[in-house]
């Protein structure tokens, strides 16, 4: 599904290398988690894959089902099946959540040469999916993320994911700012989307999210590289011993 080889990235405006050769291969249907201390480059990886500006790729490659992600505009990456759930979802006053969702769904369908969803079909689908995430009609009507609590924003991200049905989902610290109940709700939303054709990359600081979204593979990232890869046990090791031991071990 996602193949990253030797990916090197620096900040566009200053001479600071963030990713120093990342290798990562995620097969269809697999859930990978990336853990790592602050500043290790986890979020940068998610931004570079989804096409945020401000970064310069200095080496390596990233492909989604063989297509060169790094050569595409962000909207084309989305149409190709990539989705990033933001750590800090953006508030957009004056644009209704529903309008936004419909614009996004139809833009992607159009880009893929599919017919736009009719208003009725769209509404039916949104309502059903929103209900699973306990998102009420009022929240759908409100402007995108405006006045949403932390938990509501993250649920809204998962609703977008559910509506857009991407192949490759990246969750950037989706657990940040969530209480236990909200984390459970969000995780259930994610788990409901797990399927053989859909892969996930879950970026997190903490093991607790991975109690809910069980990964197949766990990577530890430090100083712009993946320094250790293992099974779900690796996350438990981090939880119990912190990063220091692992970093010392690989140094």
């Amino acid at each position, binding site marked *: 599904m996602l193949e990253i080889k030797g990916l090197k990235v620096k900040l566009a405006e200053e001479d600071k290398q963030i990713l120093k050769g990342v290798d990562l291969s995620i097969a269809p249907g697999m859930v990978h988690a990336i853990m790592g201390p602050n500043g290790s480059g986890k979020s940068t990886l998610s931004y570079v894959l989804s096409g945020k500006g401000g970064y310069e790729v200095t080496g390596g490659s990233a492909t989604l089902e063989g297509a060169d992600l790094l050569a595409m505009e962000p909207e084309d990456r989305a149409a190709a099946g990539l989705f990033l759930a933001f750590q800090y979802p953006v508030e957009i006053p004056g644009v209704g959540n529903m309008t936004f969702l419909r614009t*996004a769904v139809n833009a992607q369908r159009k880009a893929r040469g599919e017919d736009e969803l009719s208003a009725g079909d769209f509404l039916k689908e949104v309502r059903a999916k929103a209900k699973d995430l306990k998102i009420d009609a009022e929240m759908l009507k409100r402007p995108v993320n405006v006045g949403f609590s932390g938990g509501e924003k993250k649920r809204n991200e998962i609703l*977008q994911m559910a509506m857009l049905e991407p192949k490759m989902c990246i969750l950037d610290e989706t657990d940040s700012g969530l209480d236990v109940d909200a984390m459970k709700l969000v995780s259930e939303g994610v788990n409901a989307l797990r399927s053989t054709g859909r892969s996930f990359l879950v970026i997190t600081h903490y093991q607790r999210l991975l109690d809910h979204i069980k990964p197949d593979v766990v990577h530890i990232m430090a100083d712009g590289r993946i320094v250790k890869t293992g099974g779900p046990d690796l996350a438990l090791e981090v939880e119990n011993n912190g990063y220091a031991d692992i970093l010392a071990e690989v140094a």
Partner: protein
Amino acid sequence: MALAKLKMDATQARLADVVLPDGAAWGNAARADALARVQAMGLPTKRDEYWKYTDPASLVAHDAPKAALFHNDEGPLFTAVDRVRVVFVDGVFDADASDDLRAEGLEIERLSDAMKTDIHWAKDVYGVLETRGQTPVARPLAALNTALATDGVVIRVTGKASKPVNLIYLHQDENSDAILHNVVKVEAGAEVTLLETGPAAARFSKALEVDIADGGTFHHVRAQGRDHERRAVTHCFARLGAAATFKSFTLTFNGVLTRNECILEIVGNDAVAHVAGACVGDGKDFHHDDTVFVTHDAVNCESRQVFKKVLRNGATGVFQGKILVKPGAQKTDGYQISQALLLDDDSQFLAKPELEIYADDVACSHGSTSGAIDETALFYLRSRGVSHNEARNLLTLSFVAEALEEIADDTLADELRDRLEGWLSRHS
């Protein structure tokens, strides 16, 4: 002194061949008084502080600069709204194109007819609110309008108006120089919505005086149409009685020069005055100026100014807004925001927000910003598959939203939002 003399000489020269339209009974007196005031004030020049950012030369000039007619393929606004249409073609009332002016809760007359009636309510408003609005800042072009207005309507609202009144300004002559003056009196507890639409003329001078008695409500929604070469200077003078409500929103598309002044005087306690506007301009030949002056002279009143300008390809936006809180106007809640969205580095926004407060128990705030599209928000939308252009347009609508929300009637707001979307998709 030399400058002052130059200005007076220029004013005399400009007014030398002016013949006041026949205003019949009280109209003649009002016009002569206004002309004398213009002569005393002098016509504005770009050296005047109040015209620092907008050159009034083409508004003052003897002849109106020509403005090519624009074929508007969108059709007229508000056709689905049940309204009383009052049509002016290049500033001349067109009875055939207009609806029957009778409607429940409304008395609508042509200005010239009202002036012929010796004892008429409009006598106490025409030029009166305009005169009050001349201090502390002189507005000579408004006085000139009072002197020279060739047409207009006077509207008395006696109850809850059964339907909105739509003043429709058609532009059919590329040399037209229209001067209209409208007067509205909202009686105690009465309520009306006034719609104004259309490009009006090559050069359009328009004054609107609105006198709102206690508990009266005046809603105003205006769209200044798409003709690129048109010029307009408009003044709205409103006086609010106790617990009166005034809400005005203007959407301006294109136009080589637009100066919209709104002068609000709150004289009754517990009144609410909101004035808002949005403009969209593309190119160096777009210049749009909102100049607002709100005077609080009563207790526990609220005023709100919300102005949003979308500027691209070298367009210019101007905002001059002032809140004056007079001694004793306690518990005033005054708010003012003016913002420009600059879609490139060539466009500019010039803003002069002012507060002048002589009461000690008030809450007044003002803010002014200019900036580009938020890159993070743009990326957020694009990461969901929305194209760059569409994402930028959505964010532009988002930027304008706070001003559009000042329109109380959702049907009217939705229609203007659609027009705005159309403009954005044509100019992206």
